[in-house]
């Protein structure tokens, strides 16, 4: 039988969605008191696997052994009873309820809100995770929301804790704090299954790693003995093309193509962030990155720049020197700007329309002459040709000649959307989360395309939560926190620590606070 050290063993676990084998005969063991990494690209089957472990998905075949005994994890409450806790990637929190109420909902015991609040407070003190149990979740930052998830999970006293991409929304300092908590849990004998595609933190934290690719286990390793690039090779299956970038100095001498001066914006809903005096200039030939923890006003800023939200004064936003604050999206596109929003389906593309139709929808004003005969009738031939050119240029993989946008994988659709804008040779490009949920190969291609666009003399503004990405492609990085934007820091002077502190809300103007620990 088992040696008694294995807490969880998975044998031949398989999950099939339609014709796709999301998980294909997965074998995995997790020992007591270890932090076990589950590595893999988007779509490798990591989330499907943990959903089966936590009982939110039913496997088609295979078995799960808990402490050597076969178990059927038929629902999350069965998983919790066994001692499996889960911190979700897309938080499973209720925004209209308080932290304590959210915690209460996940506990199977009958217990009052007041008692929960007290326990949560004790636990948050013990693990150094400050939390106000009576705060409404809708008012909390992403980092605070994650603390609720963790405390909620700990209150169930699990023996195995599953964390799905926990640091993707944290500042480097918040992530460091999380690692300390996890190490402490390990020293208490708890096991942790840690899902991530960030190789550095896996190397820093984890004892063993299992790598998934296309739903199959492709290897087990000790991440501390591997290099980041050898891990990446295991995940992707071949070498990832590296991005080439020669940073340029941010300079006043070149033409300012995108200017935002003193942009203020009221919060539209109780959960959105007001913008407060945001100013930024992007010159020709530059890539400026905007870093920040999710939900600090980046979405609101993008809407204001792209023209989804108009400004009160026309001169707040200038494109190529012309006042654009009162212009709508098409008006700003006509001035030579291009925009790629964060949400691909429903925002960047209409899901049930074909790629060529999506192309027309975004460019019928700017390329009216090319795409519309007499300004009314669609020139299908030109459209198909342009669509084909974009597909070739960006290496978009698709299953049909002209499929619906929703039929493409996230990465391929993103390549098409970015390609659609680049194909216009825009002089100003604004992108929000260019490679979110995109596999490493496609991400490298998109990043290189943005760098090349800037090198050809355009101004490029990239909003991203991925610091590695920003350091890879930017000439300067500004940080957005609580609706305010810091001055851009030239890439030569920027460090992870400095940017991380600004993301956490340190005041850039006082050098003293940059040296301090964030509370």
């Amino acid at each position: 039988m088992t040696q008694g050290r294995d807490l969880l063993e998975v044998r031949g676990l398989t999950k099939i969605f339609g014709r796709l084998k999301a998980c294909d005969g997965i074998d995995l063991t997790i020992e007591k008191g270890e932090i076990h990494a589950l590595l893999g690209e988007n779509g490798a089957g990591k989330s499907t696997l943990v959903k089966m472990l936590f009982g939110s998905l039913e496997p088609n075949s295979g078995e799960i052994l808990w402490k050597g005994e076969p178990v059927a994890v038929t629902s999350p409450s069965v998983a919790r009873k066994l001692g499996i806790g889960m911190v979700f990637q897309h938080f499973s929190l209720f925004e209209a309820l308080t932290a304590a109420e959210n915690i209460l909902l996940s506990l199977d015991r009958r217990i009052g809100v007041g008692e929960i609040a007290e326990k949560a407070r004790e636990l948050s003190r013990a693990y150094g995770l400050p939390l106000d149990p009576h705060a409404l979740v809708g008012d909390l930052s992403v980092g605070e929301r994650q603390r609720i998830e963790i405390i909620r999970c700990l209150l169930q006293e699990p023996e195995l804790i599953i964390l799905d991409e926990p640091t993707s929304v944290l500042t480097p300092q918040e992530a460091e704090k999380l690692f300390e908590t996890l190490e402490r849990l390990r020293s208490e004998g708890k096991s942790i299954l840690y899902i991530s595609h960030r190789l550095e933190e896996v190397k820093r934290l984890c004892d063993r790693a299992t790598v998934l690719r296309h739903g199959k286990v492709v290897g087990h390793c000790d991440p501390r003995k591997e290099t980041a690039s050898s891990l990446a090779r295991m995940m992707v299956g071949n070498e990832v093309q590296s991005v080439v970038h020669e940073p340029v100095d941010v300079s006043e001498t070149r033409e300012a193509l995108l200017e935002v001066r003193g942009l203020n914006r009221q919060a539209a809903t109780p959960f959105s962030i007001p913008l407060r005096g945001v100013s930024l200039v992007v010159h020709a030939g530059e890539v400026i990155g905007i870093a920040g923890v999710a939900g600090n006003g980046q979405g609101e800023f993008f809407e204001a720049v792209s023209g989804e939200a108009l400004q009160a004064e026309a001169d707040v936003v200038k494109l190529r020197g012309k006042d654009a604050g009162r212009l709508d999206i098409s008006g700003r596109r006509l001035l030579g700007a291009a925009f790629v929003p964060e949400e691909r389906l429903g925002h960047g593309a209409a899901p049930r329309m074909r790629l060529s139709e999506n192309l027309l929808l975004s460019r019928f004003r700017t390329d009216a002459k090319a795409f519309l005969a007499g300004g009314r009738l669609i020139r299908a031939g030109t459209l198909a040709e342009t669509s084909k050119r974009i597909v070739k240029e960006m290496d978009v993989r698709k299953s049909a000649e002209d499929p619906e946008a929703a039929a493409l994988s996230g990465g391929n659709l993103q390549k098409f959307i970015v390609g659609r804008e680049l194909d216009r040779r825009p002089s100003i490009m604004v992108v929000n989360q260019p490679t979110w949920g995109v596999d490493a190969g496609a991400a490298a291609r998109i990043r290189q395309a943005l760098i090349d666009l800037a090198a050809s003399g355009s101004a490029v503004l990239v909003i991203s939560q991925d610091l590695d990405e920003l350091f890879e492609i930017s000439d300067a990085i500004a940080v957005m926190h609580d609706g305010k934007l810091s001055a851009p820091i030239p890439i030569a002077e920027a460090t992870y620590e400095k940017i991380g502190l600004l993301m956490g809300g340190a005041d850039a103007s006082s050098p003293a606070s940059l040296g301090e620990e964030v509370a």
Partner: protein
Amino acid sequence: MGIAESILLTIATAATPLLIAAMGELVVERSGVLNLGVEGMMVMGAVCGFAAAALTGSPWMGVFGGILAGVVMSLLFAFLTLSIATNQVATGLSLTLLGLGLSGMIGESFVGSAGRKLPVLDLPVLSDLPLVGRLVFGQDPIFYMSIALTLGVSWFLFRTRAGLTLRSIGDSHSSAHALGISVIGYRYLAVMFGGACAGLAGAHLSLVYTPQWVENMTAGRGWIALALVVFASWRPLRVLAGAYLFGAVTIGQLHAQALGFGIPSQLLSSLPYLATIVVLVLISRNRRLTLMNTPASLGQPFVPER
């Protein structure tokens, strides 16, 4: 019985069916389901309540029959929208049309026949107190049920764990599902509760308000109940206030019409709708509070991933 007292009594009688139907729909919507079939369930409650009372000779059997009819109608809605995930708006509208048609057919032989009225409470001394005696101690049983229902729903939603769970499902059904909460199960119960309330409200019309059966006798009250829920920001006590305001203006404008101030009667008839909407919009001006109380997953079909 003085004039003021009788006006207060008629206001309570006019407000009660709205309050009950709206309270049921409030629970349904708090679970994230939008049932536009309130009018249909209500009119079925009215006809079945009347028929059950007429056939058995007991108005209490009428109350039971009305509730049962509402529940059966709501089960049809629940099966369609929850089990096979049809569009909630279209299904709710069909339910109303179905109820109006079906009730006309069932009620055909009852048109014009004498109804049975639910007896009112009659306590010695207390019921004879001046002004408030009959209002507080001399009403029909459904009036007392409606008040108990309001307090009960308020307590359930904000003071019990099951109520918290129900609200959480309305806020995000996918999060609730991820926690292992039975989204469909809770929604079935909520929809059935809404049906029972609508049926009871209908029975009130044909057993208390005007103890007889007339085709389409709900006269749009189901729609008013739906509007009350939204304009009251899904909060039980505001629904109570809205229902009584509507009742008060309805009765007030009737008296005004009788006195004849030279105002066109059509204008006066529209006054209750106008006044209720204006007042409720004014008290729900606080956008933040409204959004906090709005069930975020309202009307979205839920298909669990398996």
